[in-house]
């Protein structure tokens, strides 16, 4: 594989929690992202999955430097973003763009499609004023929208079309990396398929690296080359997409895979389901040792004390469980 375009080294994003009204006191820290190391190659699609509250969205925001990083480095094409100045980050954002979950909230309702798509072009001065209109038309065609809708407002579009506009906006500066945070979760199945096809096509054509965040494993499996599974701020399993879903190693991934309802009544009624007890623990007060141990069917006493590192678990695969060989 070529050298990665994006590299995360032991990234931590912690949020302080204060309480008290007159005298603010630091009462705790939410370790939303707690030591994540990842690489993404040019043209690669990395799927990031986990339950709500596991830190996927914070990781996305950390990569784009939308939240301050507590420790570790985010390196985009050799440039360390965590120590970059605001000006340098602005420049880096030309190469690093984001698509958000809710296309109803992520587009400015008062801007036409033209104004929405022209803004990044003008801010970054990538084209002259005379060329903006042609460029916007080109962008709209690229995401499958007719340029004749250029002067329409977001409310005149359906959810799927709005998500296309959001994708066009992310593509405007011809970035090298796109982080898409649950881009299809708000859409219906038939529309979801259209957007997935579009993203896959764009990655192929533009050699884009895509970090695709979702909680729906079947969607992630379909689009990703590799999958990273997150639990309470840490990556617990990483590997080629089909391998991770078909032969999950970490107990959490196994539970996640078995929880997906499959559209096949025979299999659905006979398969043994690994139903986890309880909810995701509070990140304010995470369990000791392996954060998954209170819900893990394989947990032993040692799991309560040892924090498992990500260790090799087969070809190109890693998992963070000290009982990998026993289970």
């Amino acid at each position, binding site marked *: 594989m070529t050298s990665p375009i994006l590299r995360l080294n032991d990234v931590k994003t912690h949020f302080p929690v204060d309480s008290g009204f007159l005298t603010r006191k630091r009462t705790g820290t939410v370790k939303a992202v707690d030591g994540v190391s990842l690489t993404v190659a040019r043209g690669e699609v990395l799927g990031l999955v986990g*339950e*709500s509250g596991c830190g996927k969205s914070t990781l996305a925001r950390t990569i784009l430097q939308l939240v301050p990083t507590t420790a570790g480095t985010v390196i985009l094409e050799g440039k360390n973003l965590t120590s970059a100045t605001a000006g340098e980050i602005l420049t880096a954002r030309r190469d690093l763009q984001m698509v958000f979950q809710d296309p109803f909230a992520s587009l400015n309702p008062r801007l036409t499609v033209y104004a929405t798509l022209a803004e990044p072009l003008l801010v970054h001065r990538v084209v002259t004023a005379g060329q903006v209109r042609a460029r916007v038309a080109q962008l709209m065609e690229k995401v499958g929208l007719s340029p004749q809708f250029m002067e329409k407002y977001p409310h005149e579009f*359906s959810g*799927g079309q709005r998500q296309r506009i959001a994708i066009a906006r992310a593509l405007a500066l011809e970035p090298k990396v796109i982080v898409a945070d649950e881009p299809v979760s708000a859409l*219906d*199945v*038939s*529309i*979801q*398929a*259209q957007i*997935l*096809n579009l993203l*896959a096509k764009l990655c192929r054509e533009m050699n884009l690296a895509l970090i695709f965040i979702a*909680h*729906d*494993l*079947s*969607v992630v*499996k*379909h*689009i990703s080359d590799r999958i990273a599974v997150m639990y309470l701020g840490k990556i617990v399993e990483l590997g080629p*997409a*089909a391998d991770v879903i078909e032969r999950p190693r970490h107990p959490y991934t196994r*539970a*996640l895979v*078995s*929880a*997906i*309802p*499959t*559209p*096949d*009544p*025979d299999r*659905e*009624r006979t398969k043994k*389901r690994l*139903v*986890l*007890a*309880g*909810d*995701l623990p509070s990140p304010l007060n995470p369990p000791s040792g392996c954060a998954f141990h209170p819900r893990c069917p394989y947990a032993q006493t040692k799991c309560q004390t040892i924090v498992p590192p990500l260790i090799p678990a087969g070809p190109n695969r890693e998992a963070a469980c000290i009982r990998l060989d026993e289970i």
Partner: protein
Amino acid sequence: MPLLEVTDLRTSFHTRSGVYRAVDGVSFSLEKGETLGLVGESGSGKSVTCYSLMGLVPQPPGRIESGRAMFDGIDLLHCPAAQLRAIRGKRIAMIFQDPMTSLNPYLRISEQLIEPLLIHQKISKADALARGLAMLEAVGINDAANRLHSYPHEFSGGMRQRVMIAMALITRPEILIADEPTTALDVTVQAQILELIKNLQSELGMAVIFVTHDLGVVSGLCDRVQVMYAGRIVETADTRTLFHSPRHPYTRALQRSIPSLQPKGRELYTIPGLPPDLSNPIAGCAFVPRCEYATDLCRATDPRLLPVDPTQATACLRVQAGEL
């Protein structure tokens, strides 16, 4: 005799921009103890169907244009409000999609949980609380005795949905209407809630109408499935038949666009176009503009839901003619 029999239900919303036909001639029946899945994309009318049965459609702008919904000799759509109130929450209960907003944040769980009992039964508050506690335990809330008097914000999403289920089932209803009860939840929690509904159903012997857009959820839970499109039922079949031999072009297309059923790298099948605008009257079959098999006859004739098999009915002229 079926427990609930809905005939030709039509519900529309009269807005400034026109009449929006949300439910356009829906007929179905529900047997005792049966789990019926109601599947469709957003705007297909599945929620409005349920809201109509429960008398929860705001009128105006909503209006029940026609239809009957017979439950134990009572027409739910046209009975006096007092009669419906005596049924709703007692013999037919409903749980909603969003557990975050369907509990009152100002009231303790205990007060909300036992409210249906206090309204519908002659029971002392102490006895009601005891029943409430037993119900919380039944839905799998740990340490229920201490949590009974908590406020909703002290519970997670999955726990709140369990509370909603406890509240709906505390009167031992004959029908539970579940409107996307797991859509807002994580998959691991969804698995817990589905398991819970299944277990409680077999214990209480109630019938369930389960509304969802997720065919995967339906496949494990439901006995029979109805697929809705543009306010109409386009196909109904027992679950195995629907998954193994869907007949209606829409059902087939829907199934083909599920990512997990397709090999990685292949382009996903997509249904071209968008669902129709329900504020315009639809001539013929509503799926015509997106259907690869549509003929001129489809554009002109409104297809009726007719049996094509002992266990399957399809509203498609070409299937009925044996051409598909």
